């Protein structure tokens, strides 16, 4: 049996979703399913910041463009993502998985995370992909900072995502 192929990148650069998905089944005829996920920066996650911008006319919409900056722990972040995928591989059967997470400054609408899992069967591919995403959103060593007109503000750890990850616990 072939080993599960795991590839993890943490990078500032954007990525090509089509190329990444195609790479997981390239040159093989045993992959029946590639489940994938693209996470993007949502403007409304930063909407509380909009309140401090007094909107006078259409021109002012420029002032309500927000951004976030993502910091990580180089080395540990990659390790933790690889560990998450390896744990998924003990629960579901899949050939390969690709995880890409961006760091640095990101604007609303930009891609921030990508997870794809290639398997023979769609059930395994979907479950492993969602499992990896749930853990990634809660336990991976990333810290988010929102840009505000008054400067950066670090985001507190949330509880809602923890419950998404908790449902995988035995």
């Amino acid at each position, binding site marked *: 049996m072939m080993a599960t192929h795991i590839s993890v990148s943490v990078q500032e650069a954007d990525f090509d979703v089509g190329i990444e998905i195609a790479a997981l089944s390239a040159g093989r005829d045993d992959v029946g399913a590639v489940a994938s996920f693209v996470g993007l920066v949502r403007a409304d996650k930063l909407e509380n910041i909009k309140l401090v911008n007094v909107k006078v006319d259409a021109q002012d919409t420029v002032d309500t463009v927000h951004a976030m900056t993502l910091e990580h722990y180089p080395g*540990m972040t990659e390790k933790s993502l690889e560990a998450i995928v390896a744990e998924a591989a003990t629960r579901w059967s899949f050939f390969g998985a690709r995880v890409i*997470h961006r760091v640095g400054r990101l604007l609303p609408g930009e891609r921030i*995370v990508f997870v794809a899992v290639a398997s023979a069967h769609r059930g395994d591919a979907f479950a492993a992909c969602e499992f990896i995403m749930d853990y990634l959103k*809660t336990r*991976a*060593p990333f*810290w988010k900072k929102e840009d505000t007109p008054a400067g950066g503000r*670090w985001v507190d*750890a949330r509880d809602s995502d923890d419950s998404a990850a908790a449902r995988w616990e035995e």
Partner: protein
Amino acid sequence: MSVKIYFFAGLREALGVSSETLALPTDVTSVAALRDHLAARGEPWSALASTRNLRVAVNQQMVGFDTALHAEDEVAFFPPVTGG
């Protein structure tokens, strides 16, 4: 013995330091002792005591504060992660 120490996110900003290499006093043999040793430097290092739910990793593994330290360990202090 000496260890390499990293600080991340809000803690890094509060301290104005992202990493340092520190020779430990002989009585500093655990993560908790290291935190207290650093916090005792006064401002801004008391942020290590005031950071809510301060987390620590040794050699890139999350650990408890009672974890023993060894020479050349990589120790990182940071606030709870917010995830990706």
